[in-house]
C-alpha cells in the first residue's frame, strides 16, 4: 500500500522562460504505490513540472530528491537511468524504425558490441503482451501502426525502462476505449507493486476513476494536494481557475429544428466512410460522437475537400456542391471552415507571428487588388484578437510563445475572419484548459445564434451532451443513431457508440 515516505520530492523549484514564470517556488511530493493526478489549466505549470522531473529541462532554482537522495537530471536519459520515466503523447517514437527498435531504443540488448536483434524482439514481445498488444508484430514500422497502437508502443517502451516513478502526460487521449481500460488495469497493477505514478489529464472522469491523490496547480504555483474525495469536481475546477465557475455550458436554445443548410447524402470514401446521411441547419450545433476511429475525422476532412475519391452528394442551401480542395471549401460561394485536429502541425505555422497566422486564410480579404493592404491587415488582426480575447504580448510575437488554449484561439480567429457559413471542428478542446474551453463553448453557441451551421467532433461526451442540439453517433463509417433534445445523454451515446440498441424505455 502507499507508504508515507515520498519517493520523488521537489522543494522550492522555480523556472522562468524569458519573462514568464512557469513555476514559482513549488513544493511537490509523490508517494510510492499511488496514482497521483496533477491538475491545472494550460500555463499552470504542470508540463514544466514534469519536464523538470523527467530531465527535459532544468530548474532555475530549487532542489529535487529521489528516494531521499538529491538528484538533478541533465537529460531524459539521466532521468530514465534513475528510474523516472515519462510517457508523452507519441513524442518519443521514431516512425521509420520498427516497434522492437523503438522499445529498446537507447539501451538495446547487445552481443559483441552489436545489437542483438533476437533478444530485442523477445523483449518487445514480452512488454507488448503485458499491455495486451500481442497482435503487434515487433518488426512492423511504427509509421504503419494506427495512432492508438503507437501510443501503446510508447507505453510499452516506458514500462521497459523499469521505472520507479512513471509520469503520464495526456497519454491516454489517443487510445481506443478498449486500450484505455487495459492501461487502467496496468496502472493499478503498477500501483500495487509500489510504483509512484503521476497522471496528467484534463478528463475528470478518468482522474476520478484512477487517482488516489490529486494536486492542483495554478499560475505556476502549487495550490493544494489532497486525497480523492476531499473535494468535489466543481471545487476542484474552482481551484484550477481560481474563481467561481458559472454553469459550464452555455444555455441551449430550445426551438424547432431549422431547415437543413448543409446536407450530406450517401457520402462514402475508401472503407472509412460507408454512406453518411446527415444534415446541419443554420443555427444548429451538431456533434459527432462515437468511439475513436469510426470515421468522424474523415467525415470532416471530406467536407473540407481534403479527401480524394469521395462519392455521394454534398449540398449547401439545396444546391449540390463539389469540394475538391480546402481552397474550394473556403471559397466565397461555400465558406466552409475547418479547425483541424493538431493545432501545432495543421492549424498554425509556429515560427511565424501571431498576426501572420491570423490572416493566413484571409489574404484576399486584406488585399487591395494585387497588393496586401497594411491598414486592412492591422485592423483584421486587432479585430481577431479582440473577438476571442486572445492573451498575447504583441502581434509580432511568434505564435509558438502562446499557451495551448491561446494557440487554439488563434486558429479559430483565423477562420472566423473568413466569415464562414459552415464551421467544422475536429476535437477543438483537446488538451485545453478549463477556462478556455468554456470560452470556446460560449463562442460556438454565439456563432450558431448568428446563423452558422456548426458540426463538431469531440471525444468528450460531456461536451457533446452540454453543447449540442443534436448528436450523430458514428460506428464503422456510418451514422449509427441521431439523438436530439432530451435523448442526448450518456447512456444513449455510449450504447450507440458500441452499436448496441438502446434499452426500450429510456427517459433522460
Amino acid at each position, binding site marked *: 500500500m502507499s507508504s508515507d515516505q515520498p519517493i520523488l520530492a521537489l522543494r522550492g523549484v522555480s523556472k522562468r522562460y524569458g519573462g514568464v514564470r512557469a513555476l514559482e517556488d513549488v513544493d511537490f511530493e509523490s508517494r510510492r504505490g499511488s496514482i497521483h493526478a496533477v491538475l491545472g489549466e494550460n500555463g499552470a505549470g504542470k508540463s514544466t513540472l514534469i519536464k523538470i522531473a523527467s530531465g527535459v529541462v532544468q530548474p532555475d532554482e530549487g532542489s529535487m530528491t529521489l528516494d531521499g537522495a538529491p538528484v538533478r537530471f541533465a537529460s531524459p536519459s539521466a532521468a530514465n537511468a534513475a528510474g523516472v520515466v515519462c510517457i508523452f503523447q507519441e*513524442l*518519443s517514437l*521514431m516512425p521509420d*524504425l520498427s516497434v522492437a527498435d523503438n522499445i529498446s*531504443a537507447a539501451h538495446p540488448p547487445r552481443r559483441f558490441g*552489436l545489437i542483438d536483434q533476437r533478444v530485442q524482439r523477445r523483449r518487445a514481445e514480452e512488454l507488448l503482451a503485458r499491455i495486451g498488444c500481442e497482435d503487434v508484430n515487433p*518488426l512492423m514500422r511504427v509509421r504503419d501502426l494506427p495512432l492508438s497502437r503507437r501510443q501503446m508502443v510508447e507505453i510499452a517502451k516506458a514500462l521497459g525502462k523499469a521505472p520507479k516513478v512513471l509520469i503520464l502526460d495526456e497519454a491516454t487521449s489517443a487510445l481506443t476505449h478498449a486500450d484505455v481500460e487495459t492501461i487502467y488495469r496496468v496502472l493499478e497493477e503498477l500501483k500495487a507493486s509500489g510504483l509512484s505514478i503521476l497522471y496528467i489529464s484534463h478528463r475528470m472522469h478518468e482522474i476520478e476513476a484512477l487517482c488516489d491523490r490529486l494536486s492542483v496547480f495554478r499560475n505556476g504555483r502549487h495550490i493544494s494536494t489532497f486525497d480523492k474525495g476531499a473535494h468535489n469536481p466543481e471545487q476542484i475546477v474552482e481551484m484550477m481557475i481560481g474563481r467561481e465557475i458559472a454553469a459550464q455550458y452555455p444555455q441551449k436554445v430550445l426551438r424547432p429544428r431549422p431547415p437543413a443548410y448543409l446536407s450530406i447524402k450517401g457520402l462514402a470514401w475508401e472503407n472509412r466512410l460507408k454512406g453518411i446521411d446527415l444534415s446541419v441547419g443554420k443555427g444548429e450545433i451538431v456533434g459527432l460522437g462515437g468511439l475513436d476511429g469510426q470515421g468522424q475525422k474523415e467525415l470532416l*476532412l471530406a467536407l473540407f475537400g481534403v479527401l*480524394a475519391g469521395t462519392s455521394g452528394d454534398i449540398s449547401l442551401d439545396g444546391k449540390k456542391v463539389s469540394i475538391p*480542395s480546402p481552397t474550394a471549401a473556403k471559397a466565397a460561394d461555400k465558406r466552409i471552415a475547418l479547425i483541424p485536429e493538431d493545432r501545432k502541425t495543421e492549424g498554425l505555422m509556429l515560427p511565424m507571428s501571431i498576426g501572420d497566422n491570423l490572416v493566413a486564410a484571409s489574404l484576399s480579404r486584406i488585399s487591395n487588388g494585387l497588393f496586401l493592404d497594411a491598414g486592412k491587415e492591422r485592423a483584421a488582426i486587432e479585430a481577431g484578437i479582440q473577438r476571442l480575447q486572445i492573451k498575447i504580448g504583441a502581434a509580432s510575437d511568434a505564435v509558438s510563445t502562446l499557451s495551448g488554449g491561446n494557440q487554439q484561439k488563434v486558429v479559430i480567429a483565423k477562420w472566423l475572419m473568413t466569415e464562414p457559413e459552415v464551421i467544422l471542428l475536429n476535437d477543438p478542446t483537446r488538451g485545453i484548459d478549463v477556462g478556455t474551453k468554456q470560452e470556446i463553448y460560449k463562442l460556438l453557441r454565439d456563432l450558431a445564434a448568428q446563423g452558422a451551421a456548426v458540426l463538431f467532433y469531440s471525444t468528450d461526451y460531456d461536451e457533446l451532451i452540454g453543447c449540442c442540439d443534436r448528436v450523430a453517433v458514428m460506428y464503422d463509417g456510418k451514422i449509427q443513431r441521431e439523438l436530439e433534445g432530451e435523448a442526448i445523454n450518456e447512456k444513449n451515446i455510449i450504447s450507440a457508440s458500441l452499436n448496441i440498441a438502446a434499452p426500450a424505455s429510456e427517459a433522460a
Partner: protein
Amino acid sequence: MPSDLSLRIRQNAPFIGAIALFAVFYVFYNMFHPKGFSTQVLVQNSNEVFSLALVAMAQTVPVLMGGLDLSVGAVMTMVNCLASNLVSGTPLQIVFGIVVSLLAGTAFGFLNGVIVVYGRIQSIIATLATGAIAIGIALLLREKPGGDVDADLNWALTNSVVDFCETYGLFEDGKAAWLQPVAWIPVPLILLVLIALLVWVPFRRTVTGRTIYAIGSSEGAAYMSGLPIARAKIAAFTLSGFFAGCAGLFLAIQTSSGNADIPQAGAYTLNSIAAVVIGGTSLLGGVGTAIGSIFGAMILRVISFNFRIFEIDPLLQPLFEGVILLGAVCIGALGILRIKNRLELFR
C-alpha cells in the same frame, strides 16, 4: 498479423527493386557484349564502378539523417591528390601513404560533423562550403594532374584475385587449388564487399548506427528516447569521409595519378545523390541502406555500359542518361498517386 517475411519484403521494397533493376540491366549488357560474361569484362566494369559506389555509400550516411553531404566528390578528389603524392616508394612508405590518405578523408568527414553539430549549421550548406575547402586543399596538393603511385599496387588492385596473388607472391602465385573457385573475382569487387561487410553492416547494428536512422526519422523523438544525437551525427559524417577517402585512394591507385578536377568532383557528388535515391534511400531520412546505394551506383554505370554496346550515338547518351534518371525517380514516386487523404502527402 502479417508474417515476418512479408513485412521485411514490403519494408525493403525499394532496395529489392534496385537489386532487381541492376540484375536486369547487367544481364542484358552481358548478353549483347561480344565478350559478355567473361572475367575481362567483369574486371573492367568493377574498376569503373568502385569509386562511384564508394562515394554513393559516403552520401548515404548523411542522407539517412535527413541531411546531405555536398563535399563527398571534393573529399574524394582531395584524397586522390594526397594519395598521388604519398602512395609510392618502399612498402613501408606505401602502407603509410594508404593509411594517411584514409585518415585524411576520415578526418575531413569528422570536421564536417563538428561544423554541423557544434556550429549548428544545416549540412547541405556546411558541406557546400567545406567542399570548396577540400577542392582548395586538393589544388594545393596537386596543382596540375600528375603524381606517382606504385605500379604493383596499381596492377594488383585493378585486376582479379589471381593477379593480386601473383603480384605479391601469395598462395603459390595465385595458382593454389583451393583458390581457383574465387580466383577470377575482380579485386575491386572484393574490396567493395569487404568494406560493406566489415564496415557498414556492423556499424548499422550499433546504437550509433541506429541513432542515425532515428535522427532521420524524427530527431525530436530520438532526443526524448535518450539517443546520443551529437555523437551519431559526427560519426555519420566521419564515416562518410572515410568512404569518400576510400574512393579517392582507389582512384589514385587506378589512374596512378592525382587530378584536382573540379567538374569531376561535382559530377561525382551529384551522381552520388542520384545513386542514393535509385538505391532506395529516402532523401527525407530514416529509410534506406548504403548497400542499396552501391546498387544505385552500379545501375548508373551499367546504363552507360549499355550505351557502349549498342553504339548509341555518343551525342544521345547524356540525353538517355538524363531521361532514365528522371524516369526512375518518377516511377518511384507513383505510389503517391494512390494516396487519397491529401494531408498524408505532407510529411
